[in-house]
């Protein structure tokens, strides 16, 4: 797991380290350039902490012009650059390279403008996702995409990864919620796509940048759309006696025309784990738990809840509890948000997978995973963004046992193959990064990948910006694609993970 192919190291760059650091110190304040071993250590990894690399140097520019000058210099000197937001990404997109500058956007931490009339916020990329909502919530507004790491992840990183969250079913992911970006290209060109108005004409370059994992440019400003907080939000906690009945109910809710604000599924293993961990009051006799959140006006929400109740009863739910206060609604979510640490408490190690499947295949996927769990004799806990088919199975194992590790890897790869076989994809929201790079050929053929590489080449001809990420180096369909957490030492154990 900890061995991964990275682009060939350019030793001439390593040899020029002191000269490069000196030059960088002229392009920004000297204290913004870090080059000593102890200074570099915190930047050795992102939240995919199984992989570590020490960067050549870290530079923390303070404004767009500095970013432009730094990139222009690196471009002319053929120095690779790895951009980094808050470093909370789960796929290794911000993993440093030994011969590359790590360009941290941490100093871009200001909200530049709150414009209620145009329903938008103009912000620097280092501001946290939740920071935007905090800035506007006193006026009853919020920023919709809510990745579980929203307390710490930056909006610039959200743009790079096209982050989603529990509410993306109804409100979309980052790409559907931004209006404009300012970006610096690898050659230092500063460009602006979009602004405060909808749908810039011409090629949707903002749409291309969003989710491009830092390969096409460095985002230095983001304009996000803000929405009015719904009048009423209620959640329902529904237990089912079997996987099939719960899966079918989730599928039927969607096909009946209801678009819940969020809809999550947990299996028995996770119900027990999270309930032990967070005392959320989940129905422990249930084989499957569904959390459905509905928002809108009061009568709208009441009407929807009635419909959800009818569907769940028809599918033989064993328990149904509705939130009657905001406190109770949050308590429903408490267990779900503690899913990852709860698994960490149950076994020395766990692997978190991230695939998407069609919603209707939910029960089939869960049953298949259950069978595989028996076959490999490894416990697995499942959480699922049921509304949009995004699956996060957590395989529990002991990493010190080599045989268990091997079996876990095989198990994980079978799960990913199942996702693709059921018509899904290899990553729903964690990104490709280095983690799923070699799996790209499971989804794309040579033509598809060549087209994407041509786009990369057209905007970064020398392949200096975040090289070695997203696109296969090995060109083998290696079975990677897991987040490995040892002894519950997640890089950010306090962040909820969905």
């Amino acid at each position, binding site marked *: 797991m900890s061995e991964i192919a990275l682009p060939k190291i350019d030793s001439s760059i390593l040899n020029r380290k002191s000269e490069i650091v000196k030059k960088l110190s002229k392009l920004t304040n000297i204290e913004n350039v870090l080059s000593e071993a102890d200074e570099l250590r915190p930047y050795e990894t992102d939240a995919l902490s199984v992989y570590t690399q020490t960067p050549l140097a870290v530079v923390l520019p303070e404004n767009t012009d500095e970013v432009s000058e730094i990139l222009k210099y690196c471009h002319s000197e053929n120095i690779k650059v790895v951009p980094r937001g808050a470093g909370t990404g789960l796929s290794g997109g911000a993993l440093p390279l030994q011969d590359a500058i790590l360009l941290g956007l941490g100093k871009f931490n200001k909200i530049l403008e709150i414009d*209620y*009339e145009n*329903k938008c916020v103009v912000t620097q990329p280092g501001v946290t996702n939740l920071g935007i909502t905090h800035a506007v919530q006193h006026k009853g507004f919020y920023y919709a995409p809510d990745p579980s790491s929203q307390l710490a992840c930056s909006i610039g990183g959200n743009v790079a990864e096209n982050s*989603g969250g529990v509410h*993306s*079913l109804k409100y*979309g*992911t980052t*790409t*559907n919620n931004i209006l404009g970006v300012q970006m610096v290209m690898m050659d230092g*060109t500063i460009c*602006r796509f979009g*602004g*405060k*108005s*909808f*749908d810039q*004409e*011409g*090629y*949707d*370059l*903002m*749409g*291309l940048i969003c*989710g*491009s994992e830092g390969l096409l440019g460095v985002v230095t400003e983001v304009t996000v759309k803000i929405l*009015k907080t719904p*009048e009423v939000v209620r959640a329902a906690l529904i237990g089912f006696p079997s996987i099939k009945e719960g899966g079918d109910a989730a599928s039927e809710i*969607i*096909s*009946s025309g209801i*678009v819940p604000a969020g809809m999550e599924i947990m299996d028995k293993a996770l119900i027990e784990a999270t309930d032990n961990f967070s005392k959320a009051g989940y129905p422990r006799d249930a084989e499957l738990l569904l959390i459905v959140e509905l928002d*809108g*006006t*009061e009568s*709208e929400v009441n*009407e929807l809840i009635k419909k959800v109740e009818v569907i769940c009863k028809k599918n033989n739910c064993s328990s149904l509890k509705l939130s009657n206060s905001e406190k109770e609604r949050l308590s429903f979510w408490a267990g779900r948000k503690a899913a990852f640490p709860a698994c960490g408490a149950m076994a020395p190690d766990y692997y978190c997978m991230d695939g*998407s*499947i069609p919603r*209707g295949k939910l029960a089939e996927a869960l049953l298949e995973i259950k069978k595989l769990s028996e076959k490999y004799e490894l416990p697995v806990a499942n959480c699922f*963004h049921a509304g*949009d*088919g995004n699956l996060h199975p957590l395989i529990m194992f002991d990493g010190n046992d080599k045989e268990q590790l091997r079996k876990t890897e095989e198990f994980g790869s079978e799960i990913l193959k199942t996702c693709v076989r059921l*018509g*899904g*994809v*290899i990553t*729903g929201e964690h990104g*490709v990064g280095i983690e799923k790079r070699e799996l790209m050929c499971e*989804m*794309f053929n040579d*033509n*598809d990948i*060549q*087209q*994407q590489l041509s*786009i990369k*080449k057209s*905007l970064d001809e020398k392949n200096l910006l975040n090289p070695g990420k997203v696109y296969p180096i090995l060109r083998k369909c290696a079975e990677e694609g897991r987040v490995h957490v040892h002894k519950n030492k997640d890089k950010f154990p306090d962040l909820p993970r969905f």
Partner: protein
Amino acid sequence: MSTKIKINSQIFQDSNNIYYPKDESEVSDLIRELYKQDSPTEIIGNNSKSFIGNKTQSANTTSLSKISGIIDYRPEELYIKVKACTPINEIEQVLSENNQELAFEPIDFGYVKEGKSNKGTIAGYLSCNYAGSRRFKVGSVRDHVLGFKGVNGKGDIIKSGGTVVKNVTGYDLSKLIAGSFGTLVALTEITLKVLPKKDSSKTVIIYPSNFEQIYDFFNKLSSSSSEISGAVFIPEQSKDKDFVTKKNSVFKFNDLKSNISFIAFRVEGDKISIEEKINNLKKELKLSNSDISTLDVYQSEPFWKKVNNLEVFEKTEHNLIRMVIAPANGSKLCKHLENNHNYFVDWCGSLFWIEVNSKKEEKIKDLKKMAKDFGGYLTVIKTSSEYDYGEAIFTVDKVRLMISEKIKQSFDPKRILNPGKMYRGV
């Protein structure tokens, strides 16, 4: 056998020298051959929107109209996968049978072009990316595309996306294809997100007294928790008698006074929540003592069709402009347009449809500057017969043009597909 003859023998060509490839592999063969010959082609679907954009300078025309038909419709998965040139009408009909719809509310440009309905194909519509009145609530066309297949300028069949909504695997090329006017790929397959139709709708009409009040209303409407799904302003425009007559006839509804300026906003949902939202909005907009009227569902639905079909500009012979700005600047723009141009405002204050007299091309230059100053852009959707293209019909800055050229190069290095349709050199 020369390559030209080779193409002819393989792919049906009509008397107007238009190629009609009948499947994806024929599209690929054709474009690969044209690539070898350095011979560009115009790409068309059903020709319903070919009047939008610059005229392409190409020796060939390729019609994708035979690449049509529904491939896979999964109502429970909320997606439909179709061949690229499937008529929008066909898609809407099959969705309607399952009480679903394309939430972005496709505009029927047939009325502007020839005075009757012609929605054209989904590929053509995606290539323009012009969403209808619901855009500010549900997103644009590009937000509803889950994936596509198509042929790039070298003849390679490429794909991106899939059928699932959560997908961050590789660059999101669906976004790039939306609004690219066929200059990057010849589309062969499109997967769209579909949504349930709302149970019912009502439209409330209010009669504002000045431009500041219009935008005060728009601002309050877009700031409300009681979500609306459409908001237009139709001005009185008393000076142009022909337009007034047209407008009054298009918006002739029992419960609507179309001879004076009005705002119409739409509320959708189940019947109880519609009433609740309307009551909330009346309070928030302080309408208790105002003159208002309400269109029930039987009037509301045709009203929004007429808005979306741009029926007030039916068969216009003037230049028709689509301008999108940051809404906070809307009242200034309204003041400028008043009695100068016929226009109406959609998207709760963001989208302006403006008719500019055919002899006043220089006015378009002024409007374009204004669009940029107001944080937006304009496109000349339909040009009058006298338009000399002295003023570019799209809005683009130098840096975006430079990047667009690079993107074009990466898909279509020899500029085989619709060259010049958007910008010179692209």
